[in-house]
């Protein structure tokens, strides 16, 4: 194996082992920042030694043992400063190093530690950006540079975010534990929010972007799947995984050969990834089988599942989608949900029914500059033959959208309306 091959192999080992390594160390030293430093020290040792000695049979165990030795050195060095560190050092030596085999029977511990790391990385005391960067770093094993490129932000910005995040966690003495009882729901919610945010960053990437961006979808999916095994009895985890699998299934159909986005209604469904759809439906089943009322992710996934199971837009079960949006509106009411519900109602019960709902939204301040509102209204008016009223809607939509192709599309539709106008005046 050449040095380059070994480096790449070490990189792969790091990607696989680093989250568990950091999680296990964080439990011992009770500080996520210190845990990562110790893990990085072990990586450096591996980079120095493995090119000569070869990659060990159990690289995870090697890294953990190396990091623990560094931890003992660290605490010994600080023993003069604080008694507590000395105690920890001794505790480490006797308790932790006495366990030689990291494989047998410790899977539960590692699972728990990983879950602890997830909750701490996504702690609500940190800003969303800090949580995202820290999660991608500690649980995704991404470098600062990779994270920076993925989020179109300078590298020093990400580096600072991560440093400050670790400092905040230490300063606020955030405990390295899985929240319990009433706290769990809210804390889990912030975890899922981070994962979905990462997914959407990747999902919104366009052809010209850095190649790191679309890989965010894969990262988020992987994190979601890992979480589904760490917290298998949480329905919203499976709901989020289902939503991401099904959305990701449309990746190949979403973009035209020239790089333009294609709307769901116009996508070639033969390009939908059936494997991901199957996985998404299975995850949705898991969410549903856990019982209880459906949460927002499970509901959104159920809506996505309706589309995924329809061979064409016409064969979509719109009634079901209407009901699902109704349920979603109950738990996370928002004008956007209402708008989507109106579109579904129009498909299920005809354009007038949809228009009645849309007209209630025209005064909504948050939708004032949202181009999809006039776009949808125009579309429904066209279906009702009211071309004179539809044209100004499309023109308004064209003026509000920042997407060049969308603007052209809206202007084209406006022109078509002028052509079909029932009046002869202008």
């Amino acid at each position, binding site marked *: 194996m050449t040095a380059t091959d070994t480096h790449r192999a070490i990189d*792969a080992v790091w990607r696989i082992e680093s989250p568990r390594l950091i999680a296990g160390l964080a439990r011992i030293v009770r500080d996520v920042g210190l845990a990562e430093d110790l893990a990085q020290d072990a990586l450096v040792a591996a980079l120095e030694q493995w090119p000569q000695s070869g990659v060990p049979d159990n690289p995870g165990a090697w890294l953990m043992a190396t990091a623990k030795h560094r931890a003992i050195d660290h605490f010994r060095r600080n023993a003069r400063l604080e008694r507590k560190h000395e105690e920890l050092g001794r505790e480490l030596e006797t308790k932790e190093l006495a366990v030689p085999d990291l494989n047998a029977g410790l899977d539960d511990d590692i699972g728990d530690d990983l879950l602890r790391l997830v909750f701490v990385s996504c702690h609500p005391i940190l800003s969303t950006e800090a949580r995202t960067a820290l999660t991608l770093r500690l649980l995704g094993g991404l470098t600062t540079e990779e994270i920076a490129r993925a989020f179109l932000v300078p590298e020093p910005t990400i580096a600072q975010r991560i440093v400050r995040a670790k400092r905040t966690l230490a300063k606020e003495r955030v405990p390295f534990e899985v929240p319990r009882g009433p706290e769990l729901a809210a804390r889990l919610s912030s975890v899922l929010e981070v994962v979905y945010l990462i997914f959407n960053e990747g999902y919104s990437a366009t052809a010209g972007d850095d190649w790191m961006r679309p890989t965010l979808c894969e990262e988020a999916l992987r*994190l979601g799947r890992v979480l589904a095994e760490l917290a298998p009895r949480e329905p919203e985890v499976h709901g989020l995984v289902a939503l991401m699998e099904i959305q990701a299934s449309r990746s190949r159909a979403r973009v035209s050969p020239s790089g333009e986005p294609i709307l769901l209604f116009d996508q070639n469904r033969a390009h939908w990834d059936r494997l991901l759809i199957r996985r998404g439906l299975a995850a949705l089943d898991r969410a549903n089988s856990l019982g209880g009322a459906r949460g927002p992710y499970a509901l959104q996934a159920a809506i996505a599942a309706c589309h995924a199971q329809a061979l064409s837009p016409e064969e979509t079960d719109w009634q079901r989608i209407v009901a699902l949006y109704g349920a979603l509106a109950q738990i996370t009411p928002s004008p956007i949900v209402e708008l989507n519900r109106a579109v579904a109602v129009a498909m299920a019960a005809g354009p007038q029914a949809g228009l009645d709902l849309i007209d209630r939204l025209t005064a909504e301040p948050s939708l004032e500059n949202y181009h999809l509102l006039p776009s949808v209204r125009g579309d429904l008016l066209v279906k009702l033959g009211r071309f004179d009223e539809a044209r100004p809607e499309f023109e308004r939509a064209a003026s509000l959208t920042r997407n060049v192709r969308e603007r052209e599309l809206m202007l084209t539709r406006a022109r078509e309306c002028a052509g079909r106008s029932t009046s002869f005046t202008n």
Partner: protein
Amino acid sequence: MRFMVIVKANKDSEAGVMPSQKLLAEMGKYNEELVKAGVLLAAEGLQPSSKGKRVKFSGEKRTVIDGPFTETKELIAGFWLWQVRSMEEAIEWVKRCPSPFEGEAEIEIRQVFEADDFGSEFTPELREQEERLREQVSAKK
């Protein structure tokens, strides 16, 4: 990135010899690890080629041929589909697989074409990984 990871057939798998309880348990645990890592997309075992068929295409002619097929080296016994970040990660995971058969076994790794793929050897990713590692080592020294 996606990879198909293929377990090549051998005399035993073609003879329909079932894996031992021990191997089944080890494989089960390994698949569990793949699931827990968020890496496993699909996994299937294939029945021996004695139950299989081939369809030969020659111009407009289609000929159906019954198994078994004699070139065991070319046959497959099972496959996984994995989502990992690099070929190296796929290799590392394969190394951790319990040997699928007693004695010799071979597992092949093939990358799946994605929509915008131009071939894995030339991705900037691999070159950058290498640069990054070099930087890390020199920065720490």
